[in-house]
């Protein structure tokens, strides 16, 4: 099961329990060069032992398969040694001070009003004496080298790798979350390591990743780190891609778009009811965010996780496709992704293939050019087809690009321009 789950889009990799916390497992690591590089990094971190334990197991490696290994699954227990958390704390960029040392967070549409010494819904931002702080700057709890197709971003530097990081926390609580053990945890409840922006960018460069991906949990909640890391990456020629639920206010979103290169938004449903009951969020701000990214020229792709019986009606698929066409354009890739029972939705079966194919057929019929099916390795709808001559221009199996028939962003058969960021 774990093996299967490791191949799912957006899934933070899972290591078998027990192995994950065994420091001796470092001996088994096949790539000394990788290990030594990470070891040199530890000169800059405070808790060397913790870092090594995290870093040694998982094979931050580029040569195994395109779907590369994982850091250990985070543990819900606390570190027995006291740690100095001050290195992770920076003042939040978007909040408003209120009387009596309260604050109102202005980062996401939830606008939590937070008392002194309390945290917002995300669990990673805390009010201290009337000022608001992020507790997760450079506090990385998951890091992998993934193919960019795993985000999934299919029209952004296909076949390249993304150095993918996450911190604990999330500003929604999806009942189907596959990474709930980090997204629904507070930062002190998961094992994390200090990975400041410049070191992150340096690692991405060292491992030949043209992009850093902010993913797995919800990058909106580690906004300050993401922006700083994106800036550090750009100094080294490393791009940044954001994998998000899109539940963010307009002002921070616009500033974010100035510093990153692509965004993939999980549009979890096309109904407010679903957002309220299953996601604990709202649909409208997400749609607004999508429109804004498009207006600002950000490369955007949309993923829609199809959950049996909850968001899989023809009417919803059609409304979604029509909205995308009207507001984003026919060239925005739309990925219908297969659901697997997870977290609080273990009573439902995986999405039937025919449901996904029905969704694709509806979106195709509405005129969208790039409609994909995800989490079904080997399905023809993982590949990209020219909207004019309908021949395959990028062939994929799982997250692996098998063949490319693009020349300077155009179909090599008919010269039709294929929308995307190709270099």
């Amino acid at each position, binding site marked *: 099961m774990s093996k299967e789950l490791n191949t799912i889009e957006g899934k933070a990799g899972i290591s078998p329990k027990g192995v994950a916390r065994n420091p001796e497992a470092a001996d088994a690591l096949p790539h000394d060069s990788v290990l030594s590089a990470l070891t040199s990094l530890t000169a800059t971190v405070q808790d060397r032992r913790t870092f090594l334990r995290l870093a040694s197991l998982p094979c931050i490696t580029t040569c195994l398969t395109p779907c590369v290994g994982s850091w250990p699954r985070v543990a819900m*227990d606390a570190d*027995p040694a006291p740690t100095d958390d001050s290195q992770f704390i920076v003042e939040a960029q978007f909040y408003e001070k209120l009387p009596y040392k309260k604050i109102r967070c202005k980062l996401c549409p939830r606008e939590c009003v937070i*008392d002194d010494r309390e945290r917002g819904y995300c*669990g990673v931002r805390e009010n201290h004496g009337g000022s608001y702080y992020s507790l997760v700057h450079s506090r990385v709890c998951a890091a992998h080298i993934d193919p960019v197709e795993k985000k999934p971003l299919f029209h952004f530097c296909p076949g390249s790798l993304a150095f993918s990081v996450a911190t604990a926390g999330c500003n929604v609580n999806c009942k189907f979350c596959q990474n*709930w053990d980090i997204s629904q945890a507070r930062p002190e409840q998961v094992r994390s390591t200090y990975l400041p922006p410049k070191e992150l960018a340096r690692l991405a460069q060292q491992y030949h990743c043209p992009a850093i991906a902010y993913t797995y949990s919800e990058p909106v909640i580690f906004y300050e780190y993401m922006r700083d890391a994106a800036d550090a990456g750009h100094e080294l020629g490393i791009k940044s891609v954001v994998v998000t639920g899109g539940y963010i206010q307009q002002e921070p979103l616009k500033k974010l778009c100035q510093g990153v290169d692509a965004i993939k938004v999980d549009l979890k449903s096309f109904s407010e009811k679903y957002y309220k009951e299953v996601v604990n969020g709202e649909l409208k701000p997400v749609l607004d965010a999508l429109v804004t990214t498009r207006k600002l020229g950000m490369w955007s792709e949309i993923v829609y996780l199809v959950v049996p019986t909850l968001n899989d009606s023809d009417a919803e698929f059609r409304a979604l496709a029509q909205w995308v066409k009207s507001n984003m354009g026919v060239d925005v890739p739309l990925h219908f992704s297969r659901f697997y029972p997870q977290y609080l939705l273990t009573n439902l079966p995986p999405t039937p293939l025919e449901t996904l194919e029905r969704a694709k057929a509806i979106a195709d019929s509405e005129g969208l050019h790039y409609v994909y099916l995800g989490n079904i390795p080997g399905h023809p709808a993982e590949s990209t087809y020219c909207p004019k001559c309908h021949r395959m221009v990028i062939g994929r199996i799982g997250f692996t690009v098998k063949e490319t028939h693009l020349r300077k962003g155009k179909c090599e058969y008919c010269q039709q321009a294929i929308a995307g960021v190709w270099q």
Partner: protein
Amino acid sequence: MYRLEPNRREFLKTCAAGAMFAGATHKLGDFFPAREKSKVVIARDPLLRGNGSSPDSGQLLKMLDRAMQALYASDSPLEGWKKVVRPGEVIGLKVNGLAGRGNSTNVLLVDVICERLREAGIRQKDIVIWDRLNGDLESAGFRIAARQDRMRCIGNDALGYEEELSTYGSVGSCLARTLTRVCDAVINLPVLKDHGIAGVTIALKNWFGAIHNPNKYHLNVGDPYIADVNMLPPIRQKVRLHICDATTAQYEGGPSYMPQWCWPFNGLLLSRDPVALDYTGWQILEQKRSEKGMKALKELGRAPTYIATAADRQHQLGTNDPKMIERVEV
């Protein structure tokens, strides 16, 4: 062979007897024994603080003793405590340390409870004072003590949480290991105060300090999340008594300590029914708000509706029906 279910003959016999009895009295209510009222003891002492600003521990102990005797209708406080705990058990004291020294569970109250627990046969090393964070405990005036051969005082951040989710209704949470693995029984020691989102935070909400993700459950005035958290089996099964610290109470601005909205209630609220206790505490806070010319919580959109949810047919965690609450003032 022992049978859990009656056989056909026994079943018919019981039904017939029941029908005859019901027919004789003409009232179905008489057929079933009346539900017992939930007792909430309110102990107060105007001299609790003597001439000082903090409670006097001797007076506090006397007040606690009066309350325990009243709650358990016992001849002595010790007799009451022996109904709560048994020697050999590890007893957790779930305090609330969120508001620093100003309005967290009073260290002196915990001290006098520990004294009575020891007299009831609980070894010092079998007492565990706990809350969410070591930092919260320290700021409330407790000293962290993790050694297992003496009384412990420790935050969940030190002992951690279960890896597996516990789920009920709207909640899915990892429970504190102190609750699940260390304690055989727990005494809940909340504070009587206002809460800016949930309306009030008393006994039911204090269990947010036993889960890893309380920040997820403040939507919709905490309803039904607070009630659902209280349904998680270790909480339902291990909590034996609720002693609400109302030495200082706060009617606005909570859960942070806001001295301008605190008043010396000089009391304790005791109950085995957290719903009845919360309902009673809520009324006390509303009365104070009214005296101060403040709007009722309902008008502010933060009436603690989770209390009614905790009492509903699905949860049955206690009663919020004033007619079913026996309010005893001592």
